[in-house]
């Protein structure tokens, strides 16, 4: 099983979610985060004077999937979350040892 974490632009969330549902993703967890990368923050104007805001609001999506469809999920997210502008974000893939469904106690792939 793989865990795929993607940091994307907030307004892309719904698009990505729908696309993942379309390819049959069972579930997803979303966290509001802020960050910076190439896109080095932005400038805000209060009373006409400029101030730098380093961190930009992003959302992190976490999806746990069977190894088989990891690549598919990856490309789906990449395609849907992409605007081509900097700040599009990153996808991290890691593997992990075990998953448990709390309701049933099931473990492993069936618990996803």
């Amino acid at each position: 099983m793989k865990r795929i974490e993607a940091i994307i632009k907030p307004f892309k969330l719904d698009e990505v979610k729908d696309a993942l549902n379309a390819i049959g993703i069972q579930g997803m967890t979303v966290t509001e985060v802020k960050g910076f990368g190439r896109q080095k923050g932005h400038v805000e104007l209060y009373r006409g004077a400029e101030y730098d805001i380093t961190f930009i609001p992003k959302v992190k999506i976490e999806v746990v999937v069977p190894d088989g469809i990891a690549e598919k999920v990856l490309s789906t997210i990449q395609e849907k979350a992409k605007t081509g502008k900097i700040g599009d974000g990153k996808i991290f893939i890691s593997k992990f040892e075990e998953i448990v469904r709390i309701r049933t106690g099931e473990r492993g792939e069936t618990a996803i």
Partner: protein
Amino acid sequence: MKAAIQNKVVAVVLFLAVAAFLMPAAAMAEEAVAPTPAPAAAAPIPAPAPKIDTGDTAWMTVATALVMLMSIPGLALFYGGLAKTKDTLNTMAMTFVTFCIVSVLWVVYGYTLSFNTDIGGVIGSASKLFLKGVGPNSISDLAKTIPEYIFIAYQLTFAAITVALASGAYIERMKFSAWIIFSVLWMTVVYLPVAHWVWGNGFLAKLGALDFAGGTVVHINAGVAALVGALVLGRRREKAIIPGNLTLVVTGAGLLWFGWFGFNAGSALAANGLSGAAFINTNTATAVAALAWMFVEWLHSGKPTVLGLASGAVGGLVAITPAAGYVNISGAIIIGIAAGVIPFFMVAKMKPKFGYDDTLDAFGIHGVGGTIGAILTGVFADPAINDAGKGLLYGNPGQLLTQLIAVAVTLVYSGVMTFVIFLIVKAIVGLRVEPEDETAGLDESQHGERAYN
């Protein structure tokens, strides 16, 4: 630690007592300044024989409540919403505690020292300490158709908000204990005399200075205190204005606008055509200034902000304050434009240049706006609106000069005294919170609370 605080508290209480009785003396000292007498009416509509009128009383009672609302929650919301989230409560607390402090001191010695019989044009007689001799049937010579109790309460609300206004320049770094002591001292040493000079038949009144609802007494006075205090306090670690909650700012601006009708139209001290003129002038200048700020910002920064609308509105309210009962509608419109454009450039261009850290632009908006209003009153005062005021445009250039003198006097006096007061406060409890407390936020460090849980 607790002990430390106790001492501070004691200090506060002590000083409060001392101040109360030093004042009259202190006042005498200034007697020299007093110039040739010459009558001038604070209440523009002279009421023949003092007699309580239910209509005027009804209006002034409400007007008093309206000005109280300007402080809590009006100003508390406007300032609190502009502060960083971690400093929101402390910012609100500054206005809240000041309103309470002034409310008490006012009935103890504030009213009598500012509005009781004039002593040499400098201060009021101390004969009404604790409102001695005032009863339900008393009427002040300065407001001949309403109970003196209402006149006292009305003037109280002006004193309170003036002190609170200055806090906008100090927030996000000033110790709460320091602010408390500052409030006591500044209201006593700065507000009382200045209010007396202009409205209590003091020397500026006798000079013929026009200030319908407080351009000099309230806004220039507080604005200068804001600037001087900000310089003494020094810059915050995180400079930006990062408004924690702009919905509070809009709410606060709305309540200020609403309450300001009591502030300006109430300054007619009666319900009549003059209060009507002050009312519509206030609304017009405010709306014009809000739009002016918004459009200038739109052109200058590319976007019309909600904060801009709110800031412009406040700028307009400030600038029309001294003029409300003197100018006609065209005067109000011109004052509104000036009040929307000039403060914008002041805070957007000048402030960054000078580099002082007036957190919420108490000087940029109240000091500058008040000055604009005070001067333009000398230009646009129209005798057809109020025969007590005749400006440059109506053939009386002298008025403009008088206005400039009043502005200058207030500016210098408030500036110097504020500086001295800050040194005293620094000596007693110190001015700034610890660096870590500033980064962690003053809500946590000063009050042990968080705005949102």
